[in-house]
């Protein structure tokens, strides 16, 4: 049984991912405020590094201790003029760290705010990556009314 750890599962995307993997029959460990994430996540087959604020620490401490890791980044790093300097800096640092690690087991999903609210698209991307693990960045630059 696939052992999946996810941070920030009480709402939003984290909750949707939690429900998705539970429905798939995975053993899902939910990490929320107060959880001992590092020790609890060691040995997970898949770790979803979702919660903003501790992502770089968790990346550094866990990348060698979990099977695969999905890191939730942001497209804000492509648009540095956006007026969220601290958030942008931290997401840029996270993205650079993923690039530097160049690990075959890590993917960075660069999400827009719309993507955060459309969990099915993110789930589809995760399923794609699990089948095609040589992709290391999937970026959702614009989501909206289709022209197609």
């Amino acid at each position, binding site marked *: 049984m696939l052992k999946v750890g996810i941070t920030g599962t009480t709402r939003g995307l984290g909750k949707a991912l939690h429900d998705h993997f539970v429905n798939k029959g995975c053993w899902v460990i939910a990490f929320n405020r107060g959880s001992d994430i590092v020790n609890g996540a060691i040995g997970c087959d898949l770790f979803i590094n979702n919660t903003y604020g501790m992502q770089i620490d968790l990346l550094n401490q866990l990348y060698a201790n979990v099977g695969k890791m999905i890191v939730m980044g942001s497209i804000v790093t*492509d*648009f540095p003029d956006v007026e969220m300097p601290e958030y942008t800096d931290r997401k840029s640092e996270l993205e650079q760290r993923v*690039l530097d690690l*160049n690990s*075959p087991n890590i993917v960075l999903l*660069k999400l827009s705010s719309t993507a955060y609210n*459309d969990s099915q*698209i993110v789930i*589809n*991307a995760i399923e*794609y990556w699990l*089948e*095609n693990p*040589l*992709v*290391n*960045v*999937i*970026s*959702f*630059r*614009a*989501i*909206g009314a*289709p*022209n*197609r």
Partner: protein
Amino acid sequence: MKMVITGHTWGIGKSLYNSFKSAEWEVVGLSRSNGYDIDKDFERVVEAATGADLFINNAYRDQQQTKLVNALKNKVTKMIVMGSVSRLYPELIHTDYVYDKQALAEACRLISIDPNGIDLLHLDLSFIEGQDPDPNKPTDFISDYNIQYEEIISAIDFWMSNPKIRQMEFRWKLTPFVYNQLKQAFPTFDSSRIQYESKN
């Protein structure tokens, strides 16, 4: 539905051409072999692609891919652009190819911040199957993995089957083996830009 692709006679271009054809699209291939050189025949290429439901900007030559993005960004419904992950490693690879692919990525980024920008999929590819190294080229080496055509096609399928995602980017990774080979092939102390040989 009409799809137009550049560089359709070999490699991933040929594979995509055949894949769309079997999916019953009206497919138009533009290559040097049929009189559509993206450099010498640029205006003809633009004319042939205008009005396409999908344009696959595949063939590389200097900055012509970027020029095609800009020339066609209001003339096709959606576009797939074949980039290269090498653009992220300019410290390792001092070639015009890398700078051309950086310019291409920037043109794609600008479309994504344009509220009227077309639907666009940008693929930063790494080593691809079918690219045999040239033994006479010191900067060529055998990769420890090669992206299979099916992987690229499935990325395109993913985007096409999720039409809410208007602009998207997939980036393939360099393995540590490839990274180290590049480091040896392009010593960082050499600040001179190596001429990309396919240009000559």
